[in-house]
Each structure stands twice: as C-alpha cells, then as structure tokens.
C-alpha cells in the first residue's frame, strides 16, 4: 500500500461526479436553443377540439398577446400545470390557446369538462405535425406571442408559480408596456 492509494477514493468520487455532470449537461432541455424566439409563430391549419369541423389558422392568434400551451391528457405534469393555468387565467386575464398534442380528442374534451377550461379555444394536433413545426420537446410547453404573432418567450416544462413570477409575468408586462407605449405615441 503506497501513499497514492489514499487518493483512490477521491478519484472514484470525481469520476462519478464527472459522469453525472456531463450527463446532465448533455441532456438539459433548457440548454436547447430555441430557433423560434423572435420569429413569427408558424403557419398552420388545425381543427378545433370543441368542433372538429371548424379549422382555424394562425390569424386566430393575432390581435392581443396570447399564451399558446401545448398539453396532453397523457402527461401528468400537464395536470399539475392545468390548475396553475386556470389560476393565471383568472387573476391575470391572460388569453390562452391550447394545442392538444398527440392526444385522443374525446379524452381531452372530458379532461377540460372535469378540470375546467382556461383556453379561448384548443386546436387538435393529433399527429403532432404542429408540434414538429414548433420544435416541441415534450408536453407541456408554452409560447408567449405578442399581438402580431411573434414568439417572445418559450417555456419547456410546466408553468409553476416560480416561472410565472420570475419569467412569464415579466415577459407579459414588457409586452403590455410596449403595447401601451405604442398607443401613447
């Protein structure tokens, strides 16, 4: 046994930490650059969840800031987020549009009946094609658009009180500030 053998435990530990750190960095969804930030929301045409016969397109999102929320009934985080969205809808009056992602419309409709519906309308994206356009990484994801339909903020993961307070609400305030400023000019 030499003195250097005493460094073996430290070496093993640093190896484990190194592997862990590399792994987490590799896979951090927040590190994904969003190519869409600052770009217009992509063109689309999708049927409404409430009425599959009606098809809406990008123009339905314009006019005032809107939060586009990608959700699905198979996603447990979406359920937790849903309460939060209802709360934000009630307290902040933010306009919301849902994208029901790779989901069964019947299940989605009964989900909204049971849990409450914060959305102005929900579009179906059963095959996930709109999700591909949006670069959706997984549900839930949310996009904040300004009145002209430009994506100003993107959130991968749920909107919780912390995200609302630290990121979404300030982004919305900036938007409204700009809008108000524009009117005053």
């Amino acid at each position, binding site marked *: 046994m030499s*003195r250097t053998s005493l460094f073996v435990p*430290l070496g093993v*530990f640093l190896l484990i930490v190194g592997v*862990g750190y590399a*792994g987490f960095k590799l*896979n951090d*969804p927040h590190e994904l650059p969003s190519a869409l930030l600052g770009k217009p929301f992509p063109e689309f045409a999708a049927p409404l969840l409430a009425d599959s016969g009606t098809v809406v397109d990008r123009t339905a999102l314009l006019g005032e800031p809107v939060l586009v929320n990608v959700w699905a009934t198979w996603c447990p985080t979406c359920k937790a987020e849903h309460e939060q969205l209802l709360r934000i809808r009630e*307290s902040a009056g933010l306009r919301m549009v849902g994208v029901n992602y790779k989901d069964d419309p019947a299940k989605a409709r009964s989900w909204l009946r049971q849990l409450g519906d914060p959305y102005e309308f929900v579009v179906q994206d059963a095959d996930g094609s709109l999700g591909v356009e949006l670069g959706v990484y997984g549900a839930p994801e949310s996009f904040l658009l300004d009145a002209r339909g430009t994506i100003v903020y993107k959130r991968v*993961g749920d909107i919780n009180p912390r995200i609302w307070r630290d990121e979404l609400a300030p982004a919305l305030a900036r938007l409204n500030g700009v809008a108000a400023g524009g009117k005053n000019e």
Partner: protein
Amino acid sequence: MIPELGQLSLALAFCLCGFVAFFGLAGAAWRRQRWLDALGSMVTGQFVFILLAYAALSQAFLADDFSVAYVANNSNSLLPWYYKMSAVWGAHEGSFLLWTLIMAGWTLAVALRGEHLPAAFAGRVLGVMGLLNMGFLAFLLWTSNPFERLVPMTPGEGADLNPLLQDFGLIVHPPMLYMGYVGFSVAFAFAIAALLTGRLDTAWARWSRPWSNVAWAFLTLGIALGSWWAYYELGWGGWWFWDPVENASFMPWLAGTALVHSLAVTEKRGTFKSWTLLLAITTFSLSLLGAFIVRSGVLTSVHAFAVDPTRGLFILGFLVLTVGGSLALYAARATVIRSPARYTLWSRETALLVNNILLVISMALVLLGTLYPLAYEAFTGGDKISVGVPYFNAGFVPLMLALALALGIAPVLQWKRTSPTRLWRDLRWPLAISVAAGLVLPLLISGALAWQVVAALTFGVWVLVSHLWDLLFRARRGLGRVTLGYWGMLAAHLGFAVALFGISLTSVLSVEKDQRMSPGDRDTLGEMGVLFEGVGNRSGPNFVAQRGTFRIEDGNEVVFLYPEKRRYLARESVMTEAAIDAGLFRDIYISLGEPLENGAWAVRLQLKPFVRWIWLGGLLMAFGGVLAVSDARYRRLRRSVPVGTTVADAA
C-alpha cells in the same frame, strides 16, 4: 405574517450555523478557549430558530393558509389535522426543513453530551456540523423555500396531500429515515475532526461509536417502516422493489453497517484505522447522495433533475464540496494502513474484515444498479433502460448467504487468534443442528424441499444457534457478567437471521391469485375458503370509497376483510387500500382491482407466509443498536476524563 417570521428564523439559523462553523473550526485551530465556550449557546440558538421555522410552517398547514405555495400544493381544508401536521414533510421543501431541524437537533445533542470531549476536538466536530447545516439551510433558502407565497394568485382550496402519503406509515417513516441519514453526520464530523487534528488514534472511534450505533438503529427502523408501508399501502403486496428511492436509503445502511463493525475493531484493536475513517465519510456521503438525489427527482429521470437546474447545480456543488473536500482531506492526512496489531486467519479481526468486504461489495452492487440506468439515459440522450430485480437478487442472495455463514462463526471468535480446535469444539453442534434444521423445517412448513428455502433456513438457523450456543456458554459463567453491548450484538444478529427467514420464506412460498369474483363467489387460498360477499359504499373525510366484504374461513375461525377502492376528491385520484389479516406466520392480503361488468370485480388474493418476520428482524436489529449504546462503559466514558488527551487538545 407567520410564514415570513418562519423565513426570517431560517435566515437567522443560517447565520448562527455560520458562526458555529467559524468559531468552532477557527477556535480550535487558533486555540481560543472563549470562542469554543460560546459554541453551546450558538448551537442552541440555531436549533431554536429552525424549530420556530418548523412551527411556523406547521401553523400554516393547520390554519389552511393556501397563500403559501407549499401548503396550497400539499394540503386541503378537508385533510384531517394529523395529516396536516405530517404533510409538512410530504414534499420536497418541507421535508428538507425537517432535515435541517434534525441536523440542528443532532448538533445540539453532540454539544450537550460531548462535555467529556477535549474542547478543541468538540469545537471541530461542532464546526463541521455547523458548516453542513449551513449548506442545507442555504439550499432551503435559495432553491426550495417552503414559505414562498402565492400572491396574488391565492387559491381558495389546496390541491391536497398525495393520498399515498395519507397514512400512519408515512407519518413516522421519513422522520426515522432522516434521523438515520443525518445521524451519520456525527460520525462524519468526528472523522473529519480527527483528520483535521491529525490524531488518528483510537479515541475518535471510541467517541463516535455510540453516535453511529444510534444513527444506524434509526436508519434500520426507517427502512423497515418504509418497507412495511409499501407493503400495505401500495396495494399489491410487494415489500421491497429495488427502486432507486429504496436503494438510496439502503446504500448508506450497508455502508453504515460496515462502519459500525469497523469502528469496533478500530476502538478495540487499533487496526483498520484508515478504513474506518473512509467508511465514516462514505456512509454520510451516501446519505447525502440518497436524500438529495431522491428529493431532486433525478432518479426518476434525468429530465426531472434538469427541469429545475438551480437545485441540481446546487446539489452537485454541495456534494463536490463536502464529499470531494473530505476525501481530499482524507488523502492528505490519513496514514497508510499499517497494522500495528497482528492477527491471524482465525480471529475476530478477520471475521470483521470479511463482514466489511461483503457489505461494501453489496453497497457497490446497489450503487452500480442505481446509477447505471441514469448514466445510460444521460449519454444516449433519453433512451431508458432499467436494471431489474433479477440483477439485484442474483448479486444479493449469494452475498447475504456468505454474510450469514461468516456471522455464524463470529460470536465464537476471539481477538487476535482462536485455535481451530476450539472453533470446531464450539461450532460442531450448531453446524449439525443447522444442517438438520435446513432439511427438516422446509418439509414441516411447506411439505417440499425448495433449494432456496433449504439454503436460507440452514444459514438462518446457523446464525441463530451459534449465537444462542455462545450465550449459553456465557450464561454458565453468570448472566450478570454479560454486558448490554453483548446483548445488543446478539439482538442485532438474531434480527438478521429473522429477517433472512422472512425474506426467503415469503419470496418462495407466497400464494398469489388474480380472480374475477362476483358477489357470492367462493374461492380458496391455501387451505382457507374465501367468500366474496359484495361491495358497498363508504365515505371518508376527503374521499369516497367502494368497500368489498370478504369472509375468510380458516377451519373454525372466521375473519372478515374489507379492502377498499378510494377516490380522493381533491386530486381525483384512485387508491387501492388492501385489507390484511396479519399474523406471525402468515398474512392474508386482499385487494380490489378493477370493477368488471355485472357487479363482478377483479380481485387479488394473496397468502404471504412469514412476511412479518422481515420487519420483526428489522426491529430486532434496531433494538440491538440501541441496547449496545446503553452499555455501562459509555456512561463511564462520559464521566471520566478520557485517556490520551494531549496538551494541544486540552488547551
């Protein structure tokens, strides 16, 4: 207002921990007696302030203050008061608050009971513990604040506590587990203090032994409670799943068991010194890894970890500082293993070495099985694999049998050397009895010879008989001379044998039937008749339930069992509440599956022989740990000034 006071208390406690760390470590290094004298009041202060914060959060729960985000997410006005109290540790933030409270409690205990320690040494121990709790409190304050408000979006009703946690087992399980995890910080702090002092004699081992035993007993109890809870609450009768959360508590237990034994050798014989230091550091590091990583969610998926990157990075940084720092200190200060005391092959030292090797290999096995899927997912970019039960069982069964084999020899072995002739004289009868029992008992219990049962019973009886044989031998010289320490060892080792019986018999002999039953249907379970009488409705405080009635006929005895399917209103979640007729030799376990057409139900009927023995064994082990600490020599130790106090330390 009260939640803000709680937060303020946490901030004050954080500052006090900083003072404890500074005055403890610097006071010892620069020999400022007055700094060291002040530690006691600072330690008391941090405990009191964390207790205030804890009380503030409890009050927020009891008062249904849903403006506090943590309360809103984990409570509900319909929740019974005792679950409101336990909901405090029902999720991440609050359970971490409990963790810091327990940490402060252990620090206070060391300050109060450590008056026999040299002042400088005690200062270093308290300083290290203060530093640790400072880290925990920083984590709480900056990344996991339990007092965060939901203003102005205050909801009118809370989301309710996860129904799985609305249960007695979960009221007591986390505090026990945390007492164990955090308790090992004491052994850790003693080891670091010894390394800082550069005095690697046997004194630190003697001082930290009782603390390690108590922490070990708590951890044992915590794990046993967790297993018992999973058994009756998860609704399908499993008692151990090898899932990452359980493994996280099992790894420090394995390392801690090795530590408790290694400390004995270091104290009594002065060998294994470096090894014991390393085990003390490893055990607490695994506790940290386990608790932190379970709470950060990294083990369910790396994604969960990354979703809150501040928490993840804080944890990683904290681990690097504490574990990396202490291992670096170890590398710099520990002496290369030299064995001043010689021992031969047939000696207690060798047996304890075997114990250590087997336990550390087991721990490495669990560590690998737990972390490998994680590393795999991270490097493949999201592909998941799972390391399943077969991996763990294949590795664990032979290791535990080898441990049992060595354990049976242990009580007879003496320090330094034991003559093989004497060994043979003392062990031939236990050997014969255990082989005979291994062949006869399985036939009596199950009427068949399954090799797993034969092996487990042979080894279990081997441990049992060789220990009782030794006790008999000692009793002839007078039971009064048998120390509490010996009784503790005996209880813990018999606990191991009892758990071994329970685990093997339940695993091999359980009967499990999934049946479709309509009201009035009859079935059999082993030799018993089961009659399904039907399903009725019942409502609880925050749930509605469908309740089945089963009539079990066992000879002339009749038992009724009432399994339930509960729907918790606030979360709209459905829970299966199994009904259990518990017995020392067998449990009857019935759970309702899904309702089928025409009033029929999918029903799971289970007969689980000897399942209670698993937890009984755990209780015995924990009891043994406590008995050993009550040994008179620890009281003597506190009264007398320890030998080997150097001038530098006394100064």
